[in-house]
């Protein structure tokens, strides 16, 4: 079923990915400026943001230059200052003798005072540069054009990320601008071995994607695999790194995240230093890291900035919270519906008295309360910030007081759901996973009691152990056991005792798995 689905998805994207813009323009630049102008006007018809400025100067108007750019993408001040004014100044004061080729040379070498100038002799590339925010100068009589980098600084300032809050450590978060993000990383790793490989994805959007790694630390196999998988992406546009994540993930139908993402600079740099590969995407502050292992979900950057005792304690707590948020409602339902025998006497009386007069079965009750909580949470995410207060008041009253007083939910169920809700916020990377698992466990608990919980639990563990992220076992370093890497797992040793680099990413079976994976990808792309 999945194969068929994949094939259909595949067909869909290929139909859409027909190259629509540049069909008739993949050709060398004409030397006559009139023809260039004609062509550009045709390409940019109905583009009101497209601006072209023709400069005619020299004694007899022999110097004709066409400056093309997109309004807003270009910093007009810099363009005037660095390009247009020097040209006008130069040619108006000077008597010109020579051929167009010399004029072109002169402009490139002596007149333009911008530091980023490249040449192009291809119409398609010139147009691409115009739409990506550069100014392009066409000189009459020359078969080449000049691309001047006068991109306007875009986007917001570097600020603290909202989604990943930390107590200590850098408050800098990534922004939407790829260049800024690269700067943020480079600033922290002053080393030429830090590589940024740039590619463009999306047949329509031509989004800049950057593969970032530290040469020598990252596993070459994994870097190659990332390149390969990125190359295979065929789609119209990449709007967020989430698109890439879904294309390159190892298991497309798993509930568990196999690609990590982060907004925090210090966290990303730490991952790079561990030998992971980052994928930067223009237009989103979320940077992907691969391979992504289960243990990373319960690691936070704060762990490394404070004493290892506290970090270890917190990690165990986080794992506990994860289990609680997945299983607590299911456990409660199993206890109240099946296993009265194991409840201590005094607790059973408390439980029974709170269940007294509730019209629903524990399962329905749990379902209602969890659904109510999920509604509240989703509303909290989608709703304008200013109404947040009202929502929390309504939520507290509805979920807590009113439902108990009205006899729809029992006191204990409210406590159970509240604890579950709190715990579900403790491990953010897995919060959506736990939400779905919670319902699966709940259904199993209602059908088979603890037996159902154990069966589903074992299935989940089997699934987790089978998962691979870019060839690396998802449950490493626990399964397979990598003793050297246990130093940074559930129990963490102090930072001064972590003398070896993580070995998981170089595990011997990683190689073979990457190989298998690659073949699979090839097979899919063939049919």
């Amino acid at each position, binding site marked *: *079923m*999945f194969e068929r689905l994949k094939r259909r998805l595949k067909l869909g994207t290929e139909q859409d990915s027909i190259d629509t813009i540049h069909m008739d323009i993949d050709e060398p630049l004409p030397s006559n400026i009139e023809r260039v102008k004609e062509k550009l006007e045709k390409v940019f018809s109905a583009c009101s943001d497209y601006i072209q400025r023709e400069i005619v100067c020299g004694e007899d108007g022999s110097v004709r230059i066409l400056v093309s750019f997109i309004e807003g993408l270009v910093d007009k001040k810099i363009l005037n200052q660095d390009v247009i004014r020097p040209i006008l100044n130069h040619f108006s004061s000077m008597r010109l003798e020579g051929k167009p080729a010399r004029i072109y040379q002169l402009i490139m070498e002596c007149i333009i005072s911008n530091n980023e100038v490249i040449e192009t002799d291809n119409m398609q590339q010139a147009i691409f540069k115009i739409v990506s925010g550069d100014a392009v100068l066409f000189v009459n009589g020359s078969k080449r054009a000049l691309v001047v980098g006068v991109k306007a600084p875009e986007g917001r300032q570097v600020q603290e990320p909202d989604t990943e809050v930390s107590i200590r450590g850098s408050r800098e978060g990534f922004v939407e601008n790829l260049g800024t993000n690269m700067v943020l990383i480079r600033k922290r790793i002053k080393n030429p071995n830090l590589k940024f490989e740039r590619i463009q994805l999306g047949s329509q959007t031509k989004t800049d994607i950057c593969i970032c790694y530290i040469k020598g630390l990252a596993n070459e196999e994994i870097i190659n695999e990332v390149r390969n998988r990125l190359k295979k992406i065929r789609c119209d546009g990449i709007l967020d790194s989430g698109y890439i994540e879904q294309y390159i993930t190892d298991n497309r139908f798993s509930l568990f995240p196999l690609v990590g993402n982060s907004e925090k600079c210090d966290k990303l740099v730490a991952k790079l230093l561990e030998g992971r590969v980052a994928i930067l995407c223009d237009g989103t502050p979320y940077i992907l890291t691969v391979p992504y292992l289960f243990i990373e979900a319960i690691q936070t950057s704060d762990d490394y900035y404070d004493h290892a005792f506290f970090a270890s304690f917190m990690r165990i707590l986080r794992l506990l919270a994860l289990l609680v948020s997945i299983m607590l409602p299911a456990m409660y339902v199993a206890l*109240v*519906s*099946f*296993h*009265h*025998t194991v409840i201590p*006497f005094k607790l*059973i*009386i*408390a*439980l*029974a*008295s709170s*269940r*007294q*007069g*509730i019209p629903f*079965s*524990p399962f329905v009750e749990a379902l209602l309360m969890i659904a109510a909580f999920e509604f509240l949470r989703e509303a909290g995410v989608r709703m304008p910030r200013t109404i947040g207060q009202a929502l929390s008041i309504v939520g507290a009253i509805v979920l807590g007081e009113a439902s108990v007083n009205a006899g729809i939910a029992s006191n204990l169920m409210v406590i159970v759901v509240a604890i579950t809700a709190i715990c579900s916020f403790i491990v953010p990377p897995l919060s959506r996973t736990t939400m779905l698992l919670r319902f699966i466990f709940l259904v199993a608990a*209602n059908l*088979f*009691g*603890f*037996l*159902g919980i154990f*069966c589903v639990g074992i*299935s989940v563990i089997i699934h987790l152990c089978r998962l691979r992220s870019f060839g690396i076992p998802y449950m490493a370093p626990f399964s397979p056991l990598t003793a050297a890497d246990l130093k940074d797992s559930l129990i963490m040793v102090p930072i001064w005792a972590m003398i070896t680099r993580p070995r998981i990413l170089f595990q011997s079976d990683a190689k073979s798995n990457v190989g298998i994976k690659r073949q699979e990808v090839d097979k899919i792309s063939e049919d």
Partner: protein
Amino acid sequence: MKIKKVAVVLLLPALLTGCWDNVDLADINIVTALGIDKTEDGKIVVTVQVVEPGALQLTSSSQQGGGSSQSKPIFVKSYQGETIYDALISMKAIVDKRLFLSTTQVLILGERFCKEGINEALDFMRRNHNTEYLTDVLVARGVTPEEILKIQSDMDAIPAIYIKETAENTAIRAKVKRTTLMELFKEIQNVCNQVTIGQITKVDETTVKTEGTAVFKDGKLVGWLDQYQTRGYLFATDRVKGTVINVPVDDGRMSIEVMHSSGKMEVKFKDGRPSHLSIRVTLEGNIGEYAGEKMFTSPEGVYELEKLLNREIKKEIMMALNKAQKDYSSDIFGFGEFVHKHHPRYWKEVVDEWDDIFSKLPADIQVNAKIRRGGLMKSPLMRDE
């Protein structure tokens, strides 16, 4: 293929066994105490004490508020049947919800029921998977279990809890033998000794007393031990965790608090025949209270006291042993266990008439008490001279 595999995994639980019933907690009657007795015409009467959790919370909250409670937190119902199981199931005719037995705190056995033999009747408790093995078992003396369960304790809202806690307290004072259902099953199955169960009596409408022990012979109730005999019995069988013993001193009264005690029982053999029983008890105690004028600062004084204590305990053990040998002819001490272990060949010969042999054996009782501390005072509370 993958789907098939997943389906197989999902179907696996159906092959496993487990507690199938999905029953809501609100749909069960939480039984806190169970009483079993017999009518004169030989029918079984089962009495259940059921707690009403809703009402229980109401009473506890109204107690805080100072108001009066409208509904009782418990109800007690009895029903007759041919067997215990029959009576329990038939009881659904008069109670609203399924009876849930795992929460049973105490099991009260009626005198008549015990006299006719508990072994067969307790079969149900062993077979039922909902039995709580840590239930305290007590035998009601002079009253029916129903009367005991119907008391309205003003100490705890649930009488069963009150009864359980008194039994616990008395067991710590070594005045009652505390028997859980699990121990009872073990004792019944063990051929080497006879069963004893703690005794419960009713004082008034709100109070019960758990003191003394019921003595069984071959599964039938044959008599009782009073509280002192019970203590002697517990000393000998090494079940005393602590108690207070009153010692008559020449010039007043004294209470000794026993801290540790260990008892050892043996059967001495001579020429392949048992010659006499030997009971050795060593214990440590402190002076708890003394109304007299002596000072116990010299070793001699303390030795004197220890001798008195020895005599007192020896007397209690003697009384218990006498009762078991002469009156009931029932080896409740478990001397048979010793014979079984150390003289298995002889045991095989006499297994059926062991109780008679036991009754005729003379006993050698030795008590070795040590008094360790005298509390916070050296000399009695009186004016210094």
